[in-house]
């Protein structure tokens, strides 16, 4: 015999109350996330020039993405994005970790230095892009002027040459390491001092302590910054758009995936193709995140909870 438990009046009142409180986010997830997600998947199987009605084309958009590189340049823009990520991620992690270690020393005046290292991250993208464009102006810019003073006869032409444009964006990105630096700093400060004291008694030097204590203890932080940095790098957009006037130039050297997607959606109005591109990006992010999570067992050290 099945016993059906009658829920009390209070149970239903509590449930109703709970859903009133989290109502905004429940509705938000349905209206702004899950609904559009399904719609986007459906649209990605159609040919949908915004002003006409969509027609079903099956997997054609996905095939086009990977085969019609001469016109659509999707594979090319994927390569640009991947190259950027491969350069920017390790550089960003190493630099922000070094900066954090430097700023974690017990010296007078440290708050001033911390502020100086952090301040660039609050500068609006528009301002920082145009500021850097001016600093790196090949003919009148201060940086090339300094390089010439130091004896460089042929300084790089930065954003003006296809070969140097992408590394230039990596460099500009390195200016904004303050965010991950602060996270590393918090990570460093949460390492128990006892570990270092014990190591010192055992005769360990600074170098050994860095490799045997600091790095393993920081590995969860490194993991977090790696995952968020990867997701961020794959969605890179603003600085490249602003500095190239949206073209991703010169010669498509900085034609990032999201620049391409923006063009396809809002200039060409290829809504089907752009949706397919968005799903490809999502899948890439998802797979890479999963791989990173899987690999984390091997290198991320978690304290056993007591």
């Amino acid at each position: 015999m099945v016993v059906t438990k009658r829920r009390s009046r209070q149970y239903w009142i509590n449930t109703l109350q709970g859903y009133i409180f989290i109502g905004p986010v429940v509705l938000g997830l349905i209206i702004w996330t899950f609904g559009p997600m399904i719609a986007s998947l459906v649209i990605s199987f159609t040919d949908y020039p915004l002003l006409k009605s969509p027609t079903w084309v099956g997997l054609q958009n996905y095939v086009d993405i990977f085969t019609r590189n001469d016109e659509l340049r999707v594979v090319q823009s994927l390569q640009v994005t991947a190259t950027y990520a491969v350069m920017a991620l390790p550089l960003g992690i190493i630099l922000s970790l070094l900066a954090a270690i430097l700023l974690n020393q017990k010296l007078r005046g440290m708050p001033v230095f911390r502020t100086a290292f952090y301040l660039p991250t609050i500068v609006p993208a528009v301002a920082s892009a145009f500021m850097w464009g001016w600093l790196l102006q090949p003919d009148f810019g201060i940086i090339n002027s300094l390089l010439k003073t130091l004896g460089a006869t042929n300084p790089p032409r930065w954003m003006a040459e296809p070969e140097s444009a992408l590394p230039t964006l990596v460099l500009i990105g390195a200016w904004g390491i303050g965010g991950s630096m602060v996270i590393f700093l918090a990570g460093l400060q949460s390492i128990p001092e006892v570990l270092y004291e014990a190591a010192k008694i055992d005769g360990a030097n600074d170098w050994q302590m860095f490799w045997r204590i600091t790095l393993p203890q920081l590995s969860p932080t490194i993991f977090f910054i790696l995952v968020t940095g990867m997701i961020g790098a794959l969605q890179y957009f603003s600085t490249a758009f602003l500095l190239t006037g949206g073209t991703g130039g010169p010669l498509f050297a900085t034609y990032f995936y999201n620049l391409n997607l923006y063009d396809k959606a809002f200039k060409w109005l290829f809504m089907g193709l752009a949706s397919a591109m968005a799903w490809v990006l999502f899948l890439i992010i998802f797979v890479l995140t999963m791989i990173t999570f899987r690999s984390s067992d091997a290198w991320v050290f978690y304290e056993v909870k007591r």
Partner: protein
Amino acid sequence: MSAVSESSRLRRTTQASAQEIAAARARRKLRENSRKTILYAVLILGAIIFMCPLYWMLITSVKTNAEAYLYPPTLWPQAIKLINYPDAWNYEGMQFMRWTLQTIFITVTVMVGVLFTSSMCAYGFARLRFPGRNFWFIATLASTMLPAQVTLIPLYIVFFKIGWLDTYNPLIIPAWFGGGAINIFLLRQFFMGIPEELEDAALIDGAGRFRIWWSIFMPLSIPAVLTVAIFTFQGVWNDFYGPLVYISSQDNYTLALGINLFKGIYGAQTQYLMAVSTLMTIPMIVLFFVAQRYFIRGIVLTGINR
């Protein structure tokens, strides 16, 4: 063995080692001092590298156009032309006043929406017990993995159909639905730390859940609420992608779009471009110095606890 010889031997060794200790202490002090000198040198160099671009933006903004393009560049302006600021602000064909007011309007309405709904949802997740709570909480957190581009195109199509393009609705209204997973998470963490006795006492006194949320939890969580407010302000003020996609007519531009337009048309007026870029940066810098604690805490909280 007599006690006398014992104590004299002890005295001799103490004297000898006292000298050694003094020498070792001097060596250590020297090493410590040189370590400090090197650290300060690196810190100062780093701070200069991070601050110089901003200095250059500021300096260029008060030069004449001729001096801005002078080669080699002048490190300090020949004459400080503060008039550049009003000149840039009132540049013909530009509407910086209007764009600034519009940006403020969007920022404030988004901020109110985010604070109101994210704290409400956070209270629901932190303190109410009802079926489905964990499912929706995990769904909220999982939604941060999704690249914005996946939902962008269907939303754009819907906004197009209902006539919301080139209005602020697409920028403001979604913020009123929970205000972002990270904000909900941050506030929920904070709310969970508030003692339950306070709540029980209020319930016994006959206060409703809304009353408890608004009159007890909100005032007690001012640090967390300010953190959310600051990050929202920063995000909306600096946002370029959202307005770029949804706003098309110049009358409706935000400051970020306006500066990009100025660069597109009058890019050669570098001193004015730097002046408006500086003007857009100043509110962020002021905000940073007023609320530095919350800034750093916010990054640490969003970074570590995820």
